[in-house]
Every structure is written in structure tokens, then in C-alpha cells.
């Protein structure tokens, strides 16, 4: 696993770059001078106290939030106000939300085929085959014709992952994907995410599941008050955190 991660890191070529990113909500500054690079096939786990700007950070990457200063480059394209450019980046970046956000009026299959068909103009049949492959990947092909409301939370989150994967994104963003789940369902979702990481997907994951971080993260980023406070390998965080705030936070969650 770590060998794998090292190998990818050796590539070094960044797919996401943030330079001096600031974000304000009114007069409140949610992100302060964020600098960060994510390499291809790298898995970055973002941790930090509630309200520290973790969600805002990853939502800026696919323009669900608009940053106010600095540069964000995704796969060589800089985010600007140009609608075309935003849509292009969103096609390449998959996102999984804490609350799943599946479309309740569509079946699981339609949830997954919607974007490939409507955005990538894929024929229905091809999209459905793709969707079934994605459902197999998240291990619930038998749920294809159900509605989200008929599934458990863990199943819904796995459908949400399949839905994002069906766009064949280059990067996947996860915003606390297991925080809304009952404890017995967390593992099934994390297992899928671990497999995804091992298959070489570039991932930025906001989570406090330190077992997940230890298993697959190349780097852990600790945020507080809208700033990146400390960056390191999982081992670094478990054995030798430097900053006081990091130590305090880790003592609370571990």
C-alpha cells in the first residue's frame, strides 16, 4: 500500500494546485492563504475541527463555492468565472457529500446514468452498462432499480460514489462521507473508498476516520480557522505531530 503511494508520489505531477486562496463569507474569512498541491493518484485526507473550512476548501475546487483571491488549477485548467470552464472542471471532479444528495425521484440506475447521458451525451444503453459496472464496484448491483429512499444510508452513500465515478472523473472529493451514517454502515463505505484509493484514484477526503487515513492516505492536512496548520504523512500525525493545535485536536478525536 505505502509502496504504491510512494510510487505515485514519485510522479509528483500535480493535478490540483491551490495558490494563495482566500475565501470570504461576507466579512468572515473562511479560507486564509491556502497553498496546496495534490499529485496524480495521491490520496489526501483533510482533518480539522468543525468550522475550520474543510468543506469550503474542497467545495472551492469544483466551484460550489467561488474563491475570492488566489488561483485554483485543476488538471491544467484554471478556475475562472467562465461557465464553460467551470463545467469542464466539474466533469473531471467527482464529489461525494455527507448527506449523499441522491436524487430521490430517480431510481438508483437513473441517478447514475443521468450525468453520463446528459453531460457526456452517452447513449442510454451504454450508460446503463457503465452504471452497472459502477454498482458492481460499490457492491450493490442488485439495488439498481430501487429508489434511494428504499436503501440504507450505507447503500445510499455507495450509490453516490458510483454516481460520481460514472463520470469517470480524474479526482474524487469526499466531504465527510461517513459522518451521517450509523456506525455499522461506516465500514462498507470506507471499504469501497479504500479500494478506490488502491485502484489509483486521486482523492481528497475530509474525514475523521483515522483508520482510513492510516490505510490509504499519502498525506494528511490539518486545518484550523481557515488555515492549513500542518501537513504530513499519517505516521507523522500519529507519532510526531508538531503544532500544539494539532496535538490538541488529535487528542480529542483519537
Amino acid at each position, binding site marked *: 500500500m505505502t509502496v504504491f503511494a510512494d510510487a505515485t508520489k514519485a510522479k509528483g505531477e500535480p493535478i490540483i494546485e491551490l495558490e494563495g486562496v482566500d475565501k470570504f463569507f461576507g466579512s468572515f474569512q473562511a479560507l486564509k492563504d491556502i497553498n496546496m498541491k495534490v499529485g496524480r493518484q495521491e490520496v489526501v485526507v483533510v482533518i480539522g475541527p468543525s468550522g475550520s473550512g474543510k468543506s469550503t476548501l474542497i467545495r472551492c475546487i469544483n466551484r460550489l463555492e467561488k474563491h475570492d483571491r488566489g488561483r485554483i488549477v485543476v488538471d491544467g485548467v484554471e478556475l475562472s468565472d467562465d461557465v464553460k470552464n467551470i463545467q469542464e472542471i*466539474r466533469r473531471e471532479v467527482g464529489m461525494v457529500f455527507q448527506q449523499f444528495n441522491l436524487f430521490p*425521484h430517480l431510481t438508483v440506475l437513473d441517478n447514475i446514468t443521468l450525468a453520463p447521458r446528459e453531460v457526456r451525451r452517452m447513449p442510454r444503453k451504454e450508460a446503463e452498462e457503465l452504471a452497472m459496472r459502477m454498482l458492481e464496484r460499490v457492491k450493490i448491483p442488485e439495488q439498481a432499480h430501487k429508489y434511494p429512499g428504499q436503501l440504507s444510508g450505507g447503500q445510499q452513500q455507495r450509490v453516490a460514489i458510483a454516481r460520481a465515478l460514472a463520470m469517470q472523473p480524474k479526482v474524487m472529493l469526499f466531504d465527510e462521507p461517513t459522518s451521517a451514517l450509523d456506525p455499522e454502515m461506516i465500514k462498507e463505505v470506507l471499504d469501497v473508498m479504500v479500494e478506490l484509493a488502491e485502484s489509483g484514484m486521486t482523492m481528497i477526503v475530509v474525514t475523521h476516520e483515522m483508520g482510513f487515513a492510516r490505510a490509504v492516505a499519502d498525506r494528511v492536512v490539518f486545518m484550523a480557522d481557515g488555515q492549513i496548520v500542518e501537513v504530513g504523512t499519517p505516521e507523522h500525525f500519529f507519532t510526531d505531530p508538531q503544532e500544539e493545535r494539532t496535538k490538541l485536536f488529535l487528542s480529542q478525536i483519537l
Partner: protein
Amino acid sequence: MAELTETRSIPVAVRLRPVEWARRHLFGTWYDAALTVVFGGLFVYGAVWLIGFLIRSDFEILRVNLALFMVGAYPRAELWRPAAATVIVAALIGYVAGSASAAAQARAEEAGLPFHRARPKEVVARFWPVLAFIGVVLLLTSTPTPWLVVVSALIAGVVGYLAGRGQPAPVRRFAWVWSVGLVVVAYLVLTGSGIGWDRWGGFHLNLFLTVAGIGLAFPFGLILALGRRSSLPAVRAVSITYIEFIRGVPLITLLLMGIFALGFFLPQQLRPGDVTRVLVAIVLFEAAYVAEVVRGGLQAVPRGQVEAAQALGLSPWKTTRLIVLPQALRATIPAMVGQFISLFKDTTLVVVVGLIDILGASQAANSQPEFLAQGLHEVTLPFVGLAFWVGSYTMSREARRLEKRLGVGER
């Protein structure tokens, strides 16, 4: 706690004898007994009064004027046209129901869910008010024509239903094309021989104004509701101004303006007929209310839905069309149907601008020499009321079914 009570009161199927049942449920306590006596008394009084009314009254005024009530001043020589249109519409309703049923079955089978196909008995139970009203009309007929129409319509409805059920899936995909085709045919039949809307009347006019009013106000209202949320300030301002202006004006004012004011603005040869003007007023009015109802539905769609669609790369328009609107419109079904029921009833307001709808027909019948000043409003108004009650009640029941089926309120 709920579980505790559940285990304790295991339901036992005891069939009580009627006397036993009444003692327990109607006379259990002294106030139960008092309520039973009061309401039982009122009920008996009402029933006796109704029977007396039915025996005492002379329904001749309805019998003679049935065509007036149903189609107003439609040329009598051309009555086959509304009759044929009725049959076509019955076929259309049957076809739509059959197609919907077949589509629902296909979906259920695909999802491996059970599908319950409606049995004729259930359909009768569902639409008994409509059937009862048709029965009342038939009781009032003095000629065989209405029977012919009703029987043909029933057959057409059944045939339409079977066609809808039996059509192969590729044909069903174009169900809306065939449906629109039938509407066009019905319209052409009705307006043939140069009998435009402006000569329509009676209950037919009420139904037309309702259906056309809904059909035209709905898209207009939808656009207004979306306009109200637009990111362009000008679009937003226009939408809000329109909605708030219209909602501040009574419908009757708009109807009068439609009839009297529209004439000033348009040159003689372009001036539309009375029904058209009334329809314009209704659509303008109704659209503002539809917009407000839709706005409520739009607000009910969680922010996360839009974000998920955006994150997948869907354009704003596709996000609205494929994700937001379907959910918003589902959430608005109850309010929307309420709005349309009130429009249905409000169509009687056209009486004030001199159109002969079913209420106008009742007024007209009462001023015919042979029925003048005999207090026959006592007969005609209940008939008019019955027609509206049947329509409103059926709409609200169907809405409740639809709501349940689409799972409004559950997510």
C-alpha cells in the same frame, strides 16, 4: 413506548353484533350518547328533507333545458359535435389511464416490485361521484341521445384503456403524441362549421375554461416562478411585479377588464371574442397563483440537490429541468390541485360578463316564460352545485392518490 402498547393490545378480530357495536361506539359514555342523538337527529332530518325535496320538486326545468345546461347556446343542429367530442375525450382519458397503467407496470416489473392492476370494481369505487352525476343526467333525459352519448363514451373509454394497456412499448413511448392528436381532433370536431369558442357555453364552457386555463396558466406560472429566482435582476423584478400586481386584484375585476377594456386597446378586426377575452383574463390571473405555488415547491427542494447536480457537471438549465422541477412540482401537487379546484369553481364568475356557463344557464332557464317566478332556483342551483361538487371532489381525491403514489412528504 409505542412498542409496549403494541404488544399489549394485540388486535383481536371480534365481530360485534350491531347492537353491541352501537352500544360500545355510539353510546359508550353520556356525551357519546348525546352527540349520537344530536347528529343522528340532524342526519335523519336531512335525509327526510332530501327525500321530500326529490318527491316534491318538479325537475321539468332541468329536463327541458338539459342541453342548455350542458352546452349553452351551442347550435342545436350541431349537437352531434359536442357529443362526438365527449366520446373522443372519453377515449383519450381511457388511453392515458391505460398507458399510465402499462408504464407503471413495466417500471414495477423492472424494479421487481409488486404491481396492482386496477380492477373495474375499484375504478367504479374511485369515480362513483362522476358516475352518479352521469346517472342523474340520464335520469333527466327526455331523448335517447344522451344515452347514446354515455354508452358510446363508456365504450370509447374502455377501448381507449385497452389500447393504452395493450400497445407495444415503442408505441407507448409516443403516448403523448397520440394524446395530443386526440385533443386536436376533439377540438376540430367542436369548432367545425365555424363554431368557435365564443359560442360555447354551459358546463362545457366551465370545463373548457378550467382545462384551457390550467393548461395555459401552468407553463406561464412556471416561467414566472423561475423568473422570480433568476439571477438577472430585471427578470426578477418583472416577475415579482407581475405576480404581486395580479395577486392584489380580484379575478372579477380582470374579467371585466378583459371584456370591456381589451376592446379599447385593440382595433375592431383584431378584437377577440368574449370567451377568448375571459380566457386571457383567467390565464393571466391564474398564472400568478401558479407561480406562487411553484415557488413554494422550489423552496422545498434541498440545496444539496442542486449542488449534487452541479457537481456532476449538469448545466443550470438541466439542473432545473431534471432535478429541481420534478421534485418541486411533486411537492406542489396538493396546493396546485387546490388552486385548480378553485379555478374550476371560479369559472362561474363569467356570468357577470354575460357568458352563459352552467350557472348562466340556470339563470336563463329560470327566466323562461314557462318557469318564470316559480322558485325553481331551488331545483336548478342544486344541480349546478352537484356538477361542481363532483368535479372538485374527484379532483381532490385523485390528487390525494397521486400524492401517495409519488410519495410526497417522504424522501
